[in-house]
């Protein structure tokens, strides 16, 4: 009787010990897996280089926003002054209208920038990348082979044929870009470096170039004003 009771006690003790150890092991394995995941997530999403690049972009964006804010404050003050004195200032409206028509590609423009010549066949995504890089570098107006390119201009490949806004543009491309050549240059170099393995690219800085092609914005049929 006593022996059997001793065996039961010993078995219970073993079970308790093993359960406690299993619990400890489970806890440690969990901690181990979680800490590895946390380290991986931190490194994968926000390494120091990413954060530093983000800081650079935020500084640049905030400077631009500050300049926009200053320009709008001046415009607002001018409008207020004119209205207070009982007058109307349609010139201020015309000035803003001209800026927006430039942005929308509805008027011919000139200014400093780059002339980029590409000899050879490029795909739609390569041209899109180049345009994206140039816009990111502050391009204010762009044309390709005499066609004005704005944000909504579709760039598509149909087989080997590159089409811009529905027009075939061939394999000899001339991109005219107006903006700060100091900023546009590195962006153009970046695109050129990926293209130059297959096609010839030449980039020239221009003190003044003209983009005379214009686009007529498509009328809004489906979209209505308001939220």
């Amino acid at each position, binding site marked *: 009787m006593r022996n059997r009771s001793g065996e039961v006690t010993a078995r219970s003790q073993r079970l308790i010990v*093993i359960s406690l*150890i299993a619990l400890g*092991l489970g806890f*440690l394995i969990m901690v*181990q897996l979680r*800490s590895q995941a946390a380290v991986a997530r931190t490194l*994968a999403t*926000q*390494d120091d280089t*990413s*954060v530093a*690049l*983000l800081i*650079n*972009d935020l*500084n640049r*964006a*905030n400077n*631009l*926003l500050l*300049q926009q*804010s200053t320009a*709008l404050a001046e415009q*607002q003050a001018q*409008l207020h002054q*004119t*209205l207070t004195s009982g007058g109307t200032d*349609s010139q201020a*409206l*015309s000035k*803003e*209208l*001209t*800026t*927006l*028509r*430039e*942005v*929308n590609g509805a008027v*011919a*423009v*000139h200014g400093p920038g780059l002339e980029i010549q590409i000899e050879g066949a490029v795909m739609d995504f390569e041209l*899109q990348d180049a345009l*994206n890089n140039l816009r990111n570098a502050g391009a204010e107006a762009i044309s390709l082979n005499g066609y004005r390119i704005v*944000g*909504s201009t*579709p760039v*598509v490949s149909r087989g080997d044929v590159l089409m811009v806004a529905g027009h075939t543009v061939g394999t000899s491309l001339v991109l005219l870009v*107006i*903006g*700060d050549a100091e900023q546009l240059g590195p962006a153009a170099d970046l695109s050129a470096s990926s293209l130059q393995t297959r096609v010839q690219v030449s980039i020239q800085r221009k003190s003044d170039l003209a983009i*005379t092609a214009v686009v007529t*914005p498509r009328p*809004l049929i*489906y*979209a*209505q*004003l*308001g*939220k």
Partner: protein
Amino acid sequence: MTVLASVSLATFLVAGLAATQFRSQPLPPSNRVAREQALRQSVNQLEDQNHALKARVQALQADVKAGEDETARRSSAAQEVKAQLDEQKAFAGLTALHGPGLTVLLHDGTDPNSPSDQSLGWTIHYQDLQDIVNVLWASGAEAIAVNGQRIVPTTAFHYAGVNILVNNASRLSPPYTVIALGDPSALANGVGNPDQMAELKSRNRIYGLGFSWLRSTRLSVPVYDATFLLKYAQPVG
């Protein structure tokens, strides 16, 4: 004896795991921790500043618009210019719009964790967003927004490290929602065309990367949260 053997084995395993756990804990030098904290603090401060500046720009735009409305009320000449101005604002993304259209949803797939596949094809890249926006314009979209950011003539997508940025350093994070206003059928046909975005569709099959679209009778796109300031382009004549 059996208990002793079990305890010894288990203790050995626990000690081994504890050692592994201890070794896997990153032990960065204190200056690295301080540097990381300072960098992240800078991002937070700059993003707060960014939001405040955008709010300031939008408030000033509202003031300017009120002044322009008043000017138009006082003069028929100004009224004519104001009508053209409003039209150009709608095209440039300076007006909120609503209407029928298409919602495109994208999210990262599953990391294959394979040494033979380091392509990062399971994540959505900024070029994917750029491609979708391009296909939507080609399919007749009249206005587009990505994660609440209006696509305007100056919009460019780019990377800042792992971050996808758009419109004055606005960070885009997955999942991505692209809203396009226009004919829902034409937009859906464009996105569904097998010749378009073939690579993205292939990654959708391989990595389970999310890529779906939904037609709607009423969607809205917000106003661009900044404005345009041209410094180099001048009108001809």
